[in-house]
């Protein structure tokens, strides 16, 4: 077996490499040759091919994502922006918060448990590598049709994987989403969010500076995980040798990750780290090229020093391995012993694999021979950029024209019909209680959970003495986005923003995970372009910058793409968590107010789906200035103790929110249809910019005056009372009957 060294590559310029099998296009391969001035070695090809993949280089999405920077609102809160492992936001009192959402969709379809578990593991390492202590996770999920047999395979595995990893890691799960829709059948979406807290001075960036500094690889040993491509390379470069079987699936070890967290944070506290990078997709290829290209010098690594789980790995495979629970740190030579001692304390394997040089090349050695000699920037940052063609889908107009008018879709009219429609809605799988899932997640660990599911947003106390806290919500409605991607992604943003404000926190920043079909389909690409434009514009208006995120493309089976599904996470800050607003209507006699304006807006609604399996028309209109005003009112009312409960209105409309608040508080409601509103529209419309609140009688005047002065419509719609939900003159629904309909739905599906 000959080793494909740099020298060898120079001497044998005509050797054909399997670039196509590694997913490179011919022009990309030629560009690599041009950059190097020779053919790449097998190891170099391995690095370029993974780093220039869609997943790592964002080649299809980059031109659109730029808007997040270009249109970023002026925000003093932003300490570290897009481009780092995760963005960092100032939340006051010297604290900074970092959060990010990422997808692990495809792996979770192949192996639901491990796919979802390693999704959590990956996003948590991004947070650690910023210098922050991870404090919570969330998991926005989308599954296929509830009654499809494969959903029974995917859902329990995904949930067990997220719980299995997060619980063992010791991070409270404080929220997420669960949505079923046949469009996700072969492409479930498993997005994971992590949030971390640090002091401003603890922020760390991924860079390797200072010639002579050591590069330390620590954590799990490197195995052959997720390197299908590299195996091809190995077999083709080195004629004859069939590579041993390599696992396509990565297995997570949350215990190892817990040790990584503690060990990394202890090393940070002792100020032993110059730069740090987690190993995720593209493993060492990514970590070495990113650290080197973000630093001031070059880097030299010896792959022989990488601790292996499988001694048969080739250098190409070592470079591409996606083994989990690994990190790479840059440490000054005089601090290396202290660093290794901390690793030893935590039983974490740590090895010096290289050092920072004063050159500008990334050089990698194997058995004493140089097998990589590249400018790291060309690997990490100079990947291809595509201006993919896009156009409005041919079917978009017809879809939008098919509005759910009263003529098109029969609406419940009598009290009995309305009552039946309410039961059907609250018992439908997307509106049903999700506690079968969420009770498998530890929401208490770390002892700072102020709010968790099913509250509008998760809330974590950041400082025990001052009660500073942060709140996060994630939202995304693929049905709305399918009807109108621009508005749909803004509605996702608005909903998450509203959810954060509903708990009393002030929205500060955004992270997003953009889940779409194939970028090679111009109609999907249009959805992506529109959704991105909508989100960037929305963030500008709301004053909440995008701090980072993730793109997941190719979520499609054959020609069928998923609904375009931008999932948006909004992070907010609350100065005093004791003032947080929960969702439960718990105090008898309190007045229920509807904030905002209700119109006949049922396009993409839950009612249209549940009652008629219909998707058409336009999604609800959006008024971002109204969203801002609503948020200000909710925050002020919480701070000044004017409301005891609040719940935002979204899919399912007013009645869904009212039933949830009633069931959570164990208190009934008497509701009255406001003048001029049709009862059906009152109950089921999904107009944006709305929330319901419960107001103590003593605060009513103060609260309504505030709304009046600020110009926010506030309509008294009822009172907290009894043990039924009653719509005056229409129907009465006992809480017990509602609870019966609303719970047990997911268990029943999986039985």
């Amino acid at each position: 077996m000959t080793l494909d060294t740099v020298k060898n590559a120079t001497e044998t310029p005509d050797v054909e490499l399997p670039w196509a099998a590694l997913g490179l296009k011919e022009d990309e391969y030629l560009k690599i040759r041009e950059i190097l001035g020779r053919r790449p070695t097998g190891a170099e090809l391995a690095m370029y091919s993974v780093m220039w993949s869609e997943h790592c280089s964002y080649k299809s999405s980059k031109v659109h994502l730029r808007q997040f920077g270009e249109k970023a609102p002026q925000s003093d809160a932003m300490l570290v922006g897009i481009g780092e492992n995760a963005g960092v936001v100032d939340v006051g009192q010297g604290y900074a918060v970092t959060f990010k959402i990422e997808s692990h969709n495809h792996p979770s379809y192949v192996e639901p448990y491990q796919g979802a578990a390693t999704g959590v593991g990956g996003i948590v390492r991004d947070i650690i590598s910023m210098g922050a202590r991870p404090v919570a996770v969330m998991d926005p999920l989308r599954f296929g049709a509830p009654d499809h047999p494969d959903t029974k395979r995917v859902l329990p595995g995904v949930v067990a994987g997220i719980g299995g990893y997060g619980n063992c890691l010791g991070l409270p799960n404080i929220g997420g989403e669960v949505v079923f829709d046949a469009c996700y059948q072969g492409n479930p979406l498993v997005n994971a969010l992590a949030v971390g807290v640090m002091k401003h001075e603890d922020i760390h960036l991924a860079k390797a500076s200072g010639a002579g500094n050591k590069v330390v690889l620590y954590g799990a040993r490197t195995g052959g995980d997720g390197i299908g491509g590299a195996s091809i390379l190995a077999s083709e470069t080195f004629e004859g040798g069939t590579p041993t079987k390599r696992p396509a699936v990565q297995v997570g070890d949350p215990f190892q990750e817990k040790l990584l967290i503690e060990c990394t944070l202890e090393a940070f506290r002792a100020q032993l780290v110059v730069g740090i990078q987690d190993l995720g997709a593209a493993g060492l290829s990514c970590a070495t090229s990113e650290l080197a290209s973000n630093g001031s010098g070059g880097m030299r690594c010896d792959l022989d020093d990488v601790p292996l789980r499988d001694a048969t790995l080739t250098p190409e495979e070592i470079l591409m391995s996606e083994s989990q629970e690994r990190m790479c740190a840059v440490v000054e030579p005089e601090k290396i012993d202290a660093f290794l001692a901390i690793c030893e304390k935590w039983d974490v394997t740590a090895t010096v694999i290289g050092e920072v040089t004063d050159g500008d090349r990334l050089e990698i050695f194997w058995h004493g021979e140089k097998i990589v000699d590249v400018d790291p920037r060309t690997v990490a940052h100079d990947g291809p950029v595509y201006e993919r063609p896009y156009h409005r889908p041919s079917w978009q107009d017809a879809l939008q024209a098919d509005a759910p008018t009263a003529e098109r879709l029969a609406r419940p009219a009598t009290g009995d019909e309305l009552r039946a429609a309410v039961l059907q809605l609250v018992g439908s799988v997307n509106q049903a209680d999700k506690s079968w899932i969420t009770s498998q997640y530890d929401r208490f660990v770390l002892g700072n959970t102020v709010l968790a599911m099913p509250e509008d947003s998760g809330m974590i106390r950041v400082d025990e003495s001052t009660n500073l806290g942060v709140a996060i919500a994630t939202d995304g409605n693929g049905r709305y986005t399918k009807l109108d991607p621009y508005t749909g992604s803004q509605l996702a943003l608005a909903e998450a923003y509203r959810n954060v404000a509903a708990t009393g926190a002030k929205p500060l920043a955004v992270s997003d995970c953009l889940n779409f079909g194939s970028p090679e389909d111009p109609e999907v690409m249009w959805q992506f372009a529109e959704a991105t434009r909508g989100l960037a514009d929305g963030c500008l208006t709301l004053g909440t910058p995008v701090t980072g995120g993730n793109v997941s493309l190719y979520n499609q089976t054959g020609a069928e793409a998923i609904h375009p599904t931008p999932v948006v996470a909004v992070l907010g800050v609350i100065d005093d968590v004791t003032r947080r607003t929960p969702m439960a209507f718990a105090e008898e006699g309190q007045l229920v107010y509807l904030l905002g304006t209700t119109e006949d807006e049922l396009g993409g609604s839950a009612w249209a789906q549940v009652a008629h399996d219909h998707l058409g028309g336009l999604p609800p209109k959006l008024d971002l200035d109204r969203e801002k005003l609503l948020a200000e009112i909710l925050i002020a009312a919480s701070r000044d103790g004017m409301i005891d409960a609040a719940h935002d209105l979204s899919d399912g409309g007013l009645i869904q929110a009212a039933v949830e608040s009633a069931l959570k508080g164990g208190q009934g409601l008497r509701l009255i249809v406001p003048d001029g509103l049709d009862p059906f529209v009152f109950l089921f419309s999904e107009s944006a910019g709305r929330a319901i609140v419960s107001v103590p009688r003593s605060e009513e005047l103060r609260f309504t005056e505030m709304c009046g002065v600020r110009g926010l419509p506030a309509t008294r719609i009822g009172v907290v009372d009894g043990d039924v939900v009653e719509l005056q003159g229409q129907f009465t629904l006992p809480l017990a009957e509602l609870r019966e309909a609303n719970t047990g739905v997911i268990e029943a599906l999986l039985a």
Partner: protein
Amino acid sequence: MARVVVDVMLKPEILDPQGQAVQRALPRLGFEGIADVRQGKRFELEVEGPVDEAALARIHQAAETFLANTVIEDFVVRVEEGQ
């Protein structure tokens, strides 16, 4: 009644954190000389009727589709001797 055993182990190339944890603990407890530990599952199936070719074929199929996750696990089916 005959007993059929299905042994399910993670494939050799797949990380086995459980086995690894056991292996690391053994020397601390004074048990040296164990170079590797893998931890898997053992299913004991009590089969009604004769364990003939057909029955074994069905159990093999059950193991393949259900007891083992063949994405990450291998399995072996065998009739327990001495029953």
